[in-house]
Structures are given as C-alpha cells and as structure tokens.
C-alpha cells in the first residue's frame, strides 16, 4: 500500500469527485470531501516523512518505466507543497459546509464539492507529477474546477470574473503547453528529470530560451505575477468566501512551486540565472508588485479586495526570494509558501465568517464587529499581525529570511522596499482593526452574534498554526533550507 502513496495522493480526490457527483447528495458529498481531504493530508505527511532524509520516491504509473511512462517523483520540495495544499484543504473543507449554506444555492452544493475535489486533485497532481505534459493536464483540471468554483459566487460579478479568469488561465495553460512542446522537440522527452539531463549541453539553443520564456510567462499568469495579475482581484473578491480562502492559500502556492520546479528541476539554476538572468525580471516585477499592490490594498474599501491585493504583494515577496538567487532568498520563498497559506487562510476564513453573519465583507460590514464577533475578529487580528510580519507569528520568519537574503546580496533598496511594504501592511490591517474595534456599528446594520463553532474551530486551528510555527519554526525552516540548498546546487 505504502508504495502506491504517490498515486493515491491524486487518485483519491479525483475518484471521489466522480463518486460524489454520482451520489448527488449534498451531505454525503460534504462528508466524503472532508474525509478525502484528511486522507490526502495523512498521505502527504507520510510522504514528507519518507523523503525527509533527502531521498526521492519515484513512482511509475501503470508500470511504464520513465521516461516513457508518466512518473510521479516525490522529493522534499513537492512533499512540502503537498502538505501545504492538503493541510489547507483539510482545514477548509470542514469549514465549507456552513459557509456555503449562506452563499451558494442548495441545488449546487454537490457540484460545488465535486469541483472542489477536482481542484484539489489537480493542485496535488501538479505538485507531485514528474512529467511535464502531465503537469499541463492536471493544471487544466484544477483550473477548470477553479473557474466553476468562482462562478458560484452570489453576485453576478463572479460570472464575469470567472470568464475572465478562464480566458487568462487558458492563455497561461497554453503557454505552458507551448513551452513543454518546445522542450519536447528539443529533447524528445517529457520526464522532468530526464529533461534536466538532456538540457545540460543545449544551453545556447534558441528553442530552449523560447521555451523558458513561454513557461515563465505562462506560470507567471497562473501565479498572478505583476502585470499579469489583473484577473486575480476580481476573481478573489467575487468568489464564494471559502473558495477565495482556498484559492488564496493554495492555488498561487502551487504556481510558485511550478515556477521553482521548472526553473531549477528542469532548466537548472545555472541556465535560469546564468544564461537567462531571470532574476532581473523577477526582482523588478516583484518590487513593483510589492509596492504597487500594497498601496492599492490600502485604498480598497472591500476587505476581500484588500486581501486579494495583499496576496499580490505577498506573491511579490515569493518572487523576490527567487530573484535574490541565494539560499536565504529561496528559503524565504519556500517558507512564505507555507506561511502565507497559513496567514491568508486565517484572514479569508475570518472574512468568510463575517460574511456568514452579516452578508457582506466591506469595511462597513465590519464596523463595530470587535465586540459582536470577538473570536472572529481576534482571528483576523492574529492573521493581520502575521501578514505584517510581527515576531512570534509565521510572517516574521519568512520576512526575516527575505531581509537577510536581500542584505546578503547587498541590495539595501530591496530591504527598504520590503520594510516599507510591511509598514503599508500595518496601515491596511489597522484600517480594519479600527472600524471593527473603535467604530460603532451603523444603525441600519443588524446586530450579529459570534460565528458558530463549526466555523470557528477550523479558523482557530489555523490561528494556532500561525503562532506555533512562528515560535517553533525549526521544522519548516529546516525543510526550506534543505530544499533551497538542493535547488541551488552548484550556483553560489
């Protein structure tokens, strides 16, 4: 059994998605989804433990040996991302039941869970696969499910947002397909490990360079790299709350992982930095996105949009870490994958609870909630502190490494940008705190009570994780540093 874990990781949610669709009963769908997410988490943790010594698990699908068959390769990097994705799923799936009662018509609940499981399967598959084409297919599976999930939003704006995301996502996917195709014409293989070997002597090839450009831009679209981010705020702001939470915490993380995997696992650090100087593009775009997105987040009135823009800024941090091209920088990126999932998870879930009780998530809806929904707002505050990067929360850990990396590189202006952006984060989080704790509730809005326990519990699990991994960061930093060293390999 344990030798089939890599396959089960993807097949369980994929198959169960079909099963719940056939059963067509919302409650069964919910229970099965939750069970699936927990099972996935258990498998992911098991896999992480198996590869924690630096070994690589290779799994050949259907017994077809790579490079001919599709291979799933699990190493520390993707096992780490698997844990992030399935962990977030394991927390958010239980949360979803009550949350969607308020936001999605009952007739669509089965569909919702089907799409959610498909999305999970796609994300996990993208992470675990060792085959470039298989990556594209799983990317499209998760993307199609995502478009559907977004379109389930209460407002009609979610439809147009989903459509726009469909256009953009498909372009991104097609770019990736094109990049993979170019790689295949060049090397005749699709297996990532095999590709990496054969690319070695071909560094000067124009085809390889074109493939790299298409892949970076394609993946950049999926991870909402500035200026390809325009689809994201609309999608996050109009999707059902729990969908925003799930996507914000996982989808972009997997895209960042994909960038890492292609850059380091396929092209190699030497090619990416040495030949292509990708750090120039990444750092400049990341800096613009960190500052620009932070400022725009500050100007937003809708809290969900504010968080969406802050996500863009955080993605900027991750790209910055890659662009800094040293071990500390990559460590920061990897840590931030995990940490950002935790903090944005908390913030979006807290917002989902606000939505559940008040029917909205604008600043206005949140005014005076500090007293009426104390636990919800406390969770929001902890998430906010983490986002700012206050010590003893996870946010501090990744920010610390990022700053260290920028100093190591001698790029003080980058340090300044990171710190200024943190200051802006203080201000936008403070805006919410101010209306929630120091403003009276507007007379025309109803008084509300605290969110139910079934919503609070998952949220506070994440809050606890935010603090626990902020204080005891040795596990995450250990993995991240290991992976960063392996990825960078020769380049130093």
């Amino acid at each position, binding site marked *: 059994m344990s030798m089939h874990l890599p396959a089960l990781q993807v097949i369980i949610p994929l198959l169960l998605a079909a099963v719940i669709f056939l059963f067509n009963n919302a409650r069964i769908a919910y229970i099965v989804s939750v069970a699936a997410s927990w099972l996935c988490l258990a498998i992911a943790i098991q896999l992480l433990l198996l590869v924690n010594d630096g070994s690589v698990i290779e799994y050949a699908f259907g017994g077809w040996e790579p490079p001919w068959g599709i291979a799933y390769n699990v190493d520390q990097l993707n096992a780490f991302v698997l844990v992030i994705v399935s962990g977030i799923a394991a927390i958010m799936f239980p949360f979803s039941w009550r949350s969607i009662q308020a936001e999605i018509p009952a007739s669509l609940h089965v569909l919702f869970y089907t799409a959610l499981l498909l999305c999970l399967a796609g994300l996990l598959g993208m992470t675990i696969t060792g085959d470039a084409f298989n990556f594209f297919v799983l990317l499209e599976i998760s993307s199609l499910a995502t478009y559907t999930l977004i379109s389930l939003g209460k407002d009609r*704006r979610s439809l147009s947002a989903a*459509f726009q995301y469909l*256009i953009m996502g498909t372009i991104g996917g*097609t770019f990736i397909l094109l990049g993979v195709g170019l790689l295949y014409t060049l090397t005749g293989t699709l297996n990532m490990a095999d590709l990496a070997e054969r690319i070695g002597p071909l560094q000067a090839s124009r085809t390889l360079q074109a493939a790299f450009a298409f892949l970076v831009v394609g993946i950049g679209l999926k991870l909402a790299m500035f200026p390809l981010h325009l689809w994201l705020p609309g999608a996050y702001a109009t999707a059902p709350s729990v969908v925003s939470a799930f996507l914000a915490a996982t989808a972009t993380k997997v895209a960042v992982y994909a960038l890492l995997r292609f850059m380091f696992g396929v092209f190699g650090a030497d090619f990416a930095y040495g030949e292509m100087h990708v750090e120039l593009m990444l750092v400049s775009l990341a800096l613009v996105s960190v500052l620009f997105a932070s400022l725009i987040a500050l100007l937003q*009135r809708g809290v969900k949009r504010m968080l969406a823009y802050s996500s863009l800024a955080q993605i900027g941090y991750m790209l910055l870490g890659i662009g800094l091209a040293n071990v500390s920088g990559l460590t920061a990126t990897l840590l931030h994958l995990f940490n950002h999932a935790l903090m944005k998870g908390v913030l979006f879930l807290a917002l989902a609870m606000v939505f559940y009780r008040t029917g909205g998530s*604008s600043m206005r809806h949140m005014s005076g909630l500090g007293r009426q929904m104390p636990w919800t707002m406390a969770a929001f505050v902890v998430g906010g502190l983490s986002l700012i990067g206050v010590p003893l929360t996870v946010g501090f850990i990744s920010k610390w490494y990022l700053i260290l990396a920028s100093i190591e590189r001698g790029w003080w202006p980058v340090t300044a940008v990171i710190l200024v952006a943190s200051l802006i984060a203080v201000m936008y989080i403070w805006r919410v705190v101010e209306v929630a704790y120091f403003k009276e509730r507007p007379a025309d809005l109803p008084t509300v009570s605290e969110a139910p326990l079934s919503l609070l519990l998952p949220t506070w699990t994440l809050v606890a994780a935010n603090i626990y991994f902020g204080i005891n960061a040795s596990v995450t930093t250990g993995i991240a540093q290991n992976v960063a060293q392996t990825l960078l390999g020769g380049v130093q």
Partner: protein
Amino acid sequence: MMLDFFDLYNYWVVIFLMMAGFYTLIAYDNLIKKIIGLNIFQSAVFMLYISVGKVSGGSEPIAADNIELYSNPLPHVLILTAIVVGVATTALGLALTIRIKEAYGTINENDIVQMNRDAEAEKAQEWGRE
C-alpha cells in the same frame, strides 16, 4: 534563406494562427468571439505539436512489416489529450457566456465591465464616504 523560410513553413503557420488568436482576444469585446479567439490560439499550439511529430518520409505509426521509418506518435497522443482539455474549456466558457447573458443581458464585455463598475459606484454613493 528563402528555402529556410519555406522549410519551416509549419512554424510560420503556427505563429500566424497564434497571433490571430491573440489579436481576437485583445480586440473583440464579444464573449463568443473571445472564445473563438481562444480556440484559434490553442489550435496553433496543437498544430505545432502535430507538425513536429511528423518525420519526413515516415509512415503512420502503425506497426507493419517492411516499414522502417515511423512518424513519432507521441505528440499526436499528447495533443489528443490537449484537445479534450480545449473542448472542456470551450464548453465551460460557453456555459459561462449563457449565464452571463442571463445575468447581464449582454455578452459585450465592455458593457459588462461598465455595469460592474457602475454597481460599485452606486454602492459607494449609497454608503457615502466613510
């Protein structure tokens, strides 16, 4: 030089199709036309895969006696999958278009964006500056 150009004509076709698709996506506001543009764009990539799989002088990749040279079957197989994905995308896009038409009464994207913006402006007006 000219010869090179014609030798690689398949690439030029691909590039032309791709740019046509891109242009359609940028220039047309009609959602259906956008989906068509997307299809053209995807088809360009499909063509690329299929054309590079062809080995000149090679036969169809069906095992038979006295044939030594086969075209590469793998890209064709891959692109079959990609086409399935493309069809699913198109279907989803069309379904969304129908729902958008129901919800907004139009499938012109500019109008839709304007409506979204107006809705927000209205809400801001209603709530006043806070």
